[in-house]
């Protein structure tokens, strides 16, 4: 199989994941009164689903830029560890490397890191095609959803619960992986604590920083 065809086949599960999720993202963005093209802009230049959904919530609160930066940083901190297992795989990818790093979403990481080593010439084309396809699925889905949301001018009361539901599902998936209650208990404590403070503008940032401090304070030697 040629590297291009192989990349397309590997990208299929991501296609089925990114397009509906992208549509949901674009639709919610439109419904919160933001012009549709911002969905495309964000998906093309940020390309980080969870952070983009998070920003929808922050935008509706007109959160200050430093809070948006800090929340994105902490949420995407996990990406800082993705590269570790890809250092070798991404060597000799030349100019494509910057793009491959940019496109390192959770799903792309999962695909690339589970891919067995390939022949040098094929590797670069496979990685690049796969990343470009996934980037395209996410962006196209977002724009499609945003346009739908802009055309269907109906105000769907309660549709924004999709965001809550998405975070619940992601939290459940995290629990399946880590099988520890500690981060969730800390989340509740720091969430309630931040909520009681009189700084509603930076609520999420306060909660995340409090939680991070609690995580560090409660770290046991073996963890």
């Amino acid at each position, binding site marked *: 199989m040629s590297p291009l065809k192989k990349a397309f086949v590997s990208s299929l599960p991501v296609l089925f994941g990114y397009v509906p999720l992208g549509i949901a993202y674009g639709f919610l963005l439109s419904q919160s009164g933001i012009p549709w093209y911002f969905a495309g802009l964000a998906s093309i230049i940020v390309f980080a689903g969870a952070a983009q959904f998070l920003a929808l919530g922050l935008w509706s609160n007109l959160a200050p830029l430093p809070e948006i930066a800090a929340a994105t940083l902490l949420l995407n*901190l996990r990406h800082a560890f993705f590269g570790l297992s890809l250092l070798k795989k991404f060597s000799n990818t030349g100019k494509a490397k910057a793009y491959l790093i940019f496109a390192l979403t959770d799903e792309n990481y999962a695909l690339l890191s589970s891919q067995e080593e390939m022949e040098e010439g094929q590797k670069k084309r496979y990685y690049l095609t796969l990343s470009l396809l996934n980037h395209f699925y996410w962006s196209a889905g977002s724009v499609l959803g945003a346009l739908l949301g802009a055309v269907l001018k109906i105000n769907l009361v309660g549709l924004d619960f999709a965001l809550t539901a998405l975070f619940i599902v992601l939290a*459940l998936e995290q629990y399946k992986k880590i099988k520890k209650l500690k981060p969730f208990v800390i989340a509740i404590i720091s969430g309630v604590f931040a909520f009681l403070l009189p700084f509603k503008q930076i609520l999420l940032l306060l909660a995340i920083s409090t939680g991070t401090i609690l995580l560090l304070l409660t770290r046991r030697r073996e963890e």
Partner: protein
Amino acid sequence: MSSTYLILSILVMAVVTFFTRAFPFLFFIRKKPPAVLLYLERMLPPMIMLLLVLYSLKDIKPLAKPYGIPEAAAIILVVLVHRWKSNTFVSIAAGTVLYMVLRNLLGA
């Protein structure tokens, strides 16, 4: 929400996200990262996900109609459906539909 604010925040998110993804390529070329960072790497995502759930629920008024009932019911449904089917799309759709129905029935 001004366009300038939206564009600036998208740029900020893009730069920060790229930085997190480029980090190991810039710094940990040979060494293993310190244990405390690996610990945070495991613990932060679950903690943040639950905080995002709470954050998205912060405007509920438990003392006014409909008393947070739509939220509570929809959350339970999402958890149950997800434990049963483990399909992200199905779980989100089920919870959202129930929530929208309840909001309409019980009044906003």
